[in-house]
């Protein structure tokens, strides 16, 4: 079943889940959140993408666990929380896991066009949202250009990954120069195309209405964030 949420719900949901991940200081609560996020990602149609993303992050999680377990003694964050040793390591690794899981889920579940619409719906000026959508639209073209230029220069005998670090950086000059030139040329063409489209940078079609399911989800998450903030910061409850 495909649950079609308003893009604003996705953005607000992501923001509040992230807030929870940072506010909560109980390993149990963070564990529960991670479990919930994991179930959500298993149900989504993009689980392959999320799994692949997490797999590449395993070394990072391991390093986080070890660092927090053994180096926490000298950390400037020492005044926070009541854990020590492996407990801190486990908590921090779990929290990092949660943050990664949430971010991957968010990226997998929101299309670029939805992100732009959602931000616009949340009151971001159209000018800024348009700029973001323009960037998202051209990021693929520039990535393609980069690949094509790199291949062309390698075909002319350019060894990119050879020599000392400064040498390797210099190796990229024949790749970055044409990329820069092309990007500037494209920017000029883009400016012309914008004029041809009579761009006004004024508000366009009104966004879709918030539905009940959106309101429930946003409301529940907002309540959870408020609760957590009261509990951990104000010591209430």
């Amino acid at each position, binding site marked *: 079943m495909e649950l079609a949420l308003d893009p604003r719900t996705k953005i607000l949901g992501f923001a509040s889940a992230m807030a929870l991940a940072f506010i909560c200081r109980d390993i149990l609560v963070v564990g529960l959140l991670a479990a919930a996020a994991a179930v959500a990602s298993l149900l989504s149609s993009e689980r392959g993408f999320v799994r692949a993303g997490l797999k590449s992050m395993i070394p990072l999680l391991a390093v986080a666990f070890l660092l927090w377990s053994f180096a926490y003694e000298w950390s400037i964050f020492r005044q926070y929380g009541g854990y020590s040793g492996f407990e801190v390591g486990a908590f921090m690794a779990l929290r990092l896991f949660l943050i990664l899981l949430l971010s991957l889920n968010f990226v997998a579940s929101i299309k670029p066009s939805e992100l732009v619409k959602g931000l616009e719906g949340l009151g971001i000026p159209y000018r800024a949202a348009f700029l973001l959508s323009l960037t998202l639209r051209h990021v693929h073209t520039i990535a393609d250009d980069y690949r094509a230029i790199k291949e062309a220069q*390698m075909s002319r005998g350019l060894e990119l990954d050879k020599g000392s670090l400064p040498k390797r950086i210099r190796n990229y000059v024949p790749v970055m120069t044409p990329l820069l*030139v092309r990007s500037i040329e494209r920017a000029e063409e883009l400016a012309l195309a914008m004029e041809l489209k009579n761009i006004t940078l004024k508000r366009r079609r009104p966004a879709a209405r918030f539905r009940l399911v959106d309101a429930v989800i946003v409301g529940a998450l907002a309540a959870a964030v408020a609760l957590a903030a009261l509990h951990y910061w104000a010591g209430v409850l």
Partner: protein
Amino acid sequence: MEALSGGLKAIGLSCSYDGKPVFRNLNFSVRPGEAVVVIGPSGSGKTTLAYCLTGIIPNRVKAEVEGRVVADGADILSSSLRENVKRVGIILQNYEVQIFGLTVEEDLAFGLENLGLGEEEVERRIEWALDNFGLREYRSRHVHELSGGLRQRLAIASAIVTAPRYLVMDDPMMNLDWRGVIKLREIIRRLKSEGRGLVITARRLKGLEPVADKIVWLDGNGRRALAAFRPMEPQDLERKSLNDSKIAVSFENVWFRYSKARDYVLRDITLSLESGRCIALMGPNGSGKTTLAKLVNGLHKPSRGRVRVLGMDTGRFTAAQLARYVAFVFQDPDKHLVGDTVWDEVTFGPRNLGLGFDHAERALEVMGLGDRRDDPPQSLSMGEKIRLSIASALATNPEILILDEPTTGQDEETLEAIAGVVSRLKTLGKTVLMITHDSDYALKVSDRVVVIEGGAIAADGDPEEILLNEDLVRDLGLEPPTALMRRAVEVRA
């Protein structure tokens, strides 16, 4: 009244940049429902003319213009761009930049919303465009997932929904294969039947004959003449092949797919390319031609099977190492011009590989760029840039030369020069692999044609046998050679 003054007209139109004339005293008109095709080689002023007809010159690009451009009685050259686009739309050569929406629907809506139309009218026109341009099934698809041909169709649709009476298309056939040309022709026919007037620029007329009502030729007399082709002497180039076998490149049951993809781009290719021959690699866009060529120079490694170049297994060498033996001339020269001068550019390969500059010197002469060695490459015309990239490839004295669509946007002189280089390389026992859509050129230059379709070899043999076989050409979606088209006309007559 409108009938009398109707039409898009160029009256005594001349244009020059910094005193250098591009074209002089052009006179033609397009009526609603007509298509005028403007033919000229690269650098002949096709884009300049397109810019004049839409008022981009002199509004946005500075140039000296004389004469008038009139659309339905309104003077284009003295009106603002904002006013002009309502009358005359344009599809730029790089139509990619004209697509602003992230999805097909968003892009169609974009121009309409800028016009400040009501929601219902916007919806109505989007529905119309989705149906009329065959875009309905792609409605919520992301633009970057579409093929080049579909993106072009979207750009045309988005320009048309804002309802200009005239549309200028700047070289829309540039990157289309023959099937793409046929689809474009259908769109042109439809636009004409709706009563829109079209100006279409192209390098050649082929493919547009059935829809062209008038033809304007731009001869580009401002271009500099190409130096006479001077063949390299055989003794100048000592042979350096690793063994004496006649096979330069061999594919042994090669399968290839991109690292994260599920589907194979090439399936079970077994192919040998002999030395001393020119092999034309043909087939529709996206069939795997360029991928196959990249396997030859080691940019791609086979997922299964083996590719050998002069006996070397490409899996064991980097593309940079193989560059000593295989040179690759890519389609778009702007992608690899790095040097401050033409000379820097042509010696880039030899410097990377630690070779001398003798061949670089000669290659510049051969490609007619000997007198431009101190000029910056960006100041060259497109045709000259392509010649420069071929010269850069020859500068490393390769055993195998790969040309990716060398005929795109070329004038006859450059095509002759390329043909001369190919025949010279053949007599030196070198191999040329040429990717092309141009059947006439393949018939003229190549000794063998290999057709790839859907990642597999669909035909392989004598150029005449394949390209003059009407059924085969139609089934494989290849561009029919002129000889074949003439024959079809005679049969009909």
